[in-house]
């Protein structure tokens, strides 16, 4: 009973007497400091590891911070010079931003479409086949980004890979005659296949779970009203799984905007081929290959702001659902 005897004190000076009185024990627990004590380790860790570095990256982004500053431990504030240079760089507008935004949009759309189609298909299967397919999809989900990327690089190896060999055998293209990784469009087509392959299982499994929560009476009512399969999908399924779709779109948008590993590990993706750089790789290579930590930080800030804007837009639509 030690907790019960210590909580009234906290309850008294916490939220006051406005709350409804139902179960006394629970009420006392619901007020005091208990939740904050439980939250403290998590919040402190997140503050130290996420919020403080965010402050630090903002601070670095307004400095010309290089290796020598790192060694000497001094600072070198230059105001908004980094941002001015980056935002006036045609490389940002012509290469990096299209690579980041265009790629993310294509990936999100394809991932959602494939994921939803697979989920609807799985939902129509019997238990046995559904669990077999779900397990197979789980394998696709589980394959780590690192190894998955290498498998795709190997599949598309210009000289010995399966795709080049198959095209060679069909007489379409001689193996080794064209290095697709050197071409921006081919590079991103392969990256898209890789990211969609890796991302669709999450959507499929989550949407499948969501489909199970739509009351079947709604479908029956719609069918009685003469709704065909397509309009049932539009008027019953989509509204029924809207909150889940919103979560799926938010998460895959965020994931696809900050894709790093899948690009970095492809041939030329680590910054050696500037045509295929995205924001993440650009920031990384400016910092760790060029030693321009300030400039790299400014790019990182821009990426974060981009994500923040998207997140806020989506969060607002999610909050309307009152799901939290």
């Amino acid at each position, binding site marked *: 009973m030690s907790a019960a005897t210590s909580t009234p004190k906290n309850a008294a000076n916490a939220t006051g007497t406005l709350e409804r009185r139902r179960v006394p024990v629970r009420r006392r627990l619901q007020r005091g400091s208990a939740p904050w004590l439980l939250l403290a380790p998590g919040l402190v860790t997140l503050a130290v590891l996420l919020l403080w570095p965010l402050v630090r990256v903002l601070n670095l982004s307004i400095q010309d911070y290089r290796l020598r500053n790192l060694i000497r431990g001094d600072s070198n504030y230059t105001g908004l010079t980094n941002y001015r240079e980056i935002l006036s760089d045609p490389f940002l507008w012509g290469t990096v931003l299209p690579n980041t935004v265009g790629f993310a949009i294509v990936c999100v759309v394809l991932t959602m479409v494939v994921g939803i189609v697979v989920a609807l298909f*799985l939902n129509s299967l019997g238990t046995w086949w559904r669990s077999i397919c779900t397990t197979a999809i789980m394998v696709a989900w589980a394959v*780590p*980004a*690192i190894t998955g990327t290498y498998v795709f690089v190997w599949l598309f190896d210009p000289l010995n890979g399966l795709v080049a060999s198959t095209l060679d055998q069909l007489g379409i293209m001689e193996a080794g005659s064209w290095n697709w990784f050197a071409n921006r469009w081919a590079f991103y087509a392969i990256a898209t296949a890789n990211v969609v392959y890796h991302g669709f299982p999450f959507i499929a*499994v989550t949407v499948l779970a969501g489909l199970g929560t739509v009351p079947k009476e709604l479908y029956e009512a719609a069918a009685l009203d003469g709704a065909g399969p397509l309009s049932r999908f539009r008027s019953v399924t989509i509204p029924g799984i809207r909150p*889940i779709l919103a979560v799926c779109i938010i998460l895959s948008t965020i994931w696809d905007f900050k894709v790093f590993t899948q690009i970095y590990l492809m041939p030329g993706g680590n910054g050696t081929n500037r045509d295929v750089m995205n924001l993440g790789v650009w*920031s990384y290579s400016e910092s760790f290959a060029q030693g321009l930590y300030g400039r790299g930080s400014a790019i990182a800030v821009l990426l974060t702001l981009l994500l923040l804007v998207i997140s806020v837009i989506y969060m607002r639509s999610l909050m309307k659902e009152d799901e939290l």
Partner: protein
Amino acid sequence: MSTAPADRTAPAGPVGPAPTAAERTAQRAAIRRRSPRRIVTAAGKAVGVVLVLVFSLFPFYWMLSTAVDPNPLGRGASWLPTGFTLKNFRFVLVDAGFLDYVKNSAIVALGTVLISGAIALLAAVAVARFRFRLRTQVLILVLLVQMVPLEALVIPLFLQARNLHLLNSMLGLIIVYLAFSLPFAIWNLRGFVAAVPKELEEAAYVDGANWLRMFRSILFPLVAPGLVATSVFSFITAWNEFIFALTFMQDSSKYTVGVGLRSFFTQNTANWGAVMAASTIIALPVVIFFVLVQRNLASGLTQGAVKG
């Protein structure tokens, strides 16, 4: 209409070779809703199943079959390996010292799992069980921090770790990985905690248990499956992480598996047999873990998404 689907869909028929038809029909009758079913013929479904299986499994199959191929570069367009050998695995584990990287990764991943599991469980209980001021704000914060891009933090965290002499250290990597496994772990566990009936907790209080006692005897055992699923996810996050491992671990004896994998590439060529053997070693535990906890994880995700 309400009884029709079960009858109507039974003849929708066998998809591929069935174990026993009667058993399957019984299982199918147990499924309640199946509206898209009528428009999809049995043949279409069979094709669909094959497509899903091939699309999902082919890259994995290609990795495995290259790993056991004695001559992967001479394989050409053949879907089958040219032979069977384990020499790629022997080369990777014995000659190339990949086992050390596996050990490093395992230590880092287990450290992350234990610490983030403990912290996340406490936080999940707080947001799922207590109604307090700023609760919604805390939840939004947990969601928002998942949106912070890794790349944005690698520079400040690298500089910080360098100052604290945590580069080339397992502990440094474990601490950093907490940032990436915690928000998801809290979010996910919250669904599992919320699913435990409050009445059980109240019964414990009525029996005179204090909060700690109730936590130990009621909540923790019931949330344990969710904790396992969350731990697996944290393990996978840490095991798969690349960018921080690449930046922090500059001494090759401290490489994790992801960074160590790069050592099989030379300037322009790759030893694909070795790369795929090492990839198999990385991917296999993850795939097995993942498939084992799939149901828990999926239900946790949706609960996290739709329940409060």
